């Protein structure tokens, strides 16, 4: 394959170039990609063939698996929705306003990307446990955060915020002020301009950010396992159930749940691409 690519006889799928090294770099990249990513994932999917459809269906619809998937997905949807609202506000003030500490705020938004998930998990638990810094004030109100589904949501809010902010920032930066000026000239009040001109233009970016945060949230493990109670049927997330199946050496069970999650991830990936194709046609941005 490598030797074919560097022969001067131009293969139809690649345009000829004077720059050397295509065979070496492309060959190495493909081999590395295949060994690390493609072959292992293919073998994982292939492994499900050891199960009959009935067995697969029985695992996929078993009460514990359904409960875990519902929690992972439901908590991720709520967290992504919260992040879409606050992430849009944060992106807006970071692009449009000038205020002291703006750069610091901008930099700290990336903290969830940089802070290891296990660290986030234990510190959020320390804050929201019933004798914790915030938890002690919530406990008398009857709000239980740590070791409940609400804790899962809190952890996923932490994890997902930068996805929304970083998706929206460049889009807000590219917004044409002229349309807002035109709206104002035509007598629109500022709230009217915001809600009827600006926000509709931002909807595709908000949706993209929402789905990115959602996708990350559904698969998240490290930050959640500490703050969730990990009780079967109640506060057990889908990735944790995979880990439990593995420790029981139930490879088929783990594989079945994993392929369901891969399918969910794939659907979300398609959704993002559809949103972006639609946005490009409708608004002319990605």
């Amino acid at each position, binding site marked *: 394959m490598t030797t074919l690519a560097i022969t001067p006889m131009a293969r139809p799928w690649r345009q000829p170039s004077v*720059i050397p090294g295509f065979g070496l*770099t*492309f060959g190495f990249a493909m081999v590395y990609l295949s060994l690390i990513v493609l072959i292992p994932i293919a073998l994982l999917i292939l492994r499900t063939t050891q199960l009959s459809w009935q067995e697969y269906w029985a695992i996929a619809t078993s009460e514990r698996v359904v409960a875990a998937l519902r929690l992972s997905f439901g908590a991720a949807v709520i967290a992504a929705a919260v992040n879409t609202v606050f992430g849009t506000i944060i992106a807006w*003030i970071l692009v449009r306003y000038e205020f002291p500490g703006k750069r610091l705020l901008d930099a700290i938004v990336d903290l969830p990307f940089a802070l290891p998930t296990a660290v986030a998990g234990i510190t959020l638990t320390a*804050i929201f446990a019933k004798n914790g810094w915030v938890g002690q004030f919530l406990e008398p109100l009857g709000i239980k955060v740590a070791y409940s589904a609400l804790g899962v949501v809190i952890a996923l809010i932490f994890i997902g915020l930068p996805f929304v902010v970083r998706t929206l920032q460049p889009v807000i930066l590219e917004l044409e002020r002229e349309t807002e000026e035109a709206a104002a000239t035509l007598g629109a009040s500022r709230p009217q301009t915001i809600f009827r001109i600006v926000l509709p233009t931002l909807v595709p970016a908000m949706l993209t950010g929402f789905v990115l945060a959602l996708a990350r949230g559904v698969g998240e493990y490290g930050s959640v396992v500490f703050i969730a109670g990990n009780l079967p049927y109640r506060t057990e997330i889908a990735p944790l159930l995979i880990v439990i199946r593995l420790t029981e050496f139930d490879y088929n069970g783990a594989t079945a749940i994993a392929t369901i999650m891969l399918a969910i*991830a794939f659907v979300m990936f398609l959704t993002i691409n559809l949103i972006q194709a639609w946005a490009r046609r409708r608004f002319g941005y990605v």
Partner: protein
Amino acid sequence: MSDPALAAPRTWRSPTAEIRPVRALLIGIAAVFIGVFLVFPLVAVFIEALRNGVGAYFGALGDADTQHAIWLTLMVAAIAVPANLVFGIAAAWAISKYEFRGKAFLITLIDLPFSVSPVIAGLIYVIMFGSHGYFGPWLNDHNIQIIFAVPGIVLATIFVTFPFVARELIPLMDEQGTQEEEAAISLGASGWQTFRRVTLPNVKWALMYGVLLCNARAMGEFGAVAVVSGHIRGLTNTMPLHIEILYNDYQWVAAFTVASLLALLALVTLVVKSALEWRFGHELTGGPR
């Protein structure tokens, strides 16, 4: 000219900006949200770590298992990051300097590890190399251990950090085009000379940026590594896994002590990242920001 009717009214404000109270409110909401969900947890790490004083903090750091965990984390990152760096450069060169069909699909495949749950990233290697996996029996016969050993941890770490360098380099090198390289080649430079003296200086800050993010994730990865490591103290415990063990042992201060080291790493990463963005922003994205 000094007709008061023509002068701007004192209450004039830009028609494309919100009124002052609204701005203050929005900035307030953003600051409180970031404060509660991001800053507060970060500060809490250090306060919990120092709860029993500096002595207890350094005492926890002196523990042999903790030191081994630190060493293992550094070693895993020292293998995974350079591996993905070489891949990132090779992939970016092949994708940005040539035209071939299927390029967009290839870029999608490179980004694939980001859309896979970390637990699944660990699972795929257990399915391949675990005792009940595809190659498990063969590896067992030849006394090679990958799962519940360091090679498995390295593989899982490489998987989760796979796209970091490539995804920084590909858009930038694509933007820069091929003219400079073609000029160098036509003046008699070899391929390696062209890369080292023409391409590399053009992308060095983006390269550093990618390595920085790759390293932060490599040292902090928990889910994928937890699945393949087996949590053997003093053997296959990285720092994030060691935090979990200490935490489940109710060694609260020790857990937060190790966590504080990773939080420091995150802070350093953020500072360097921001510095790169402010100082070399246009060289990271291939155009003026």
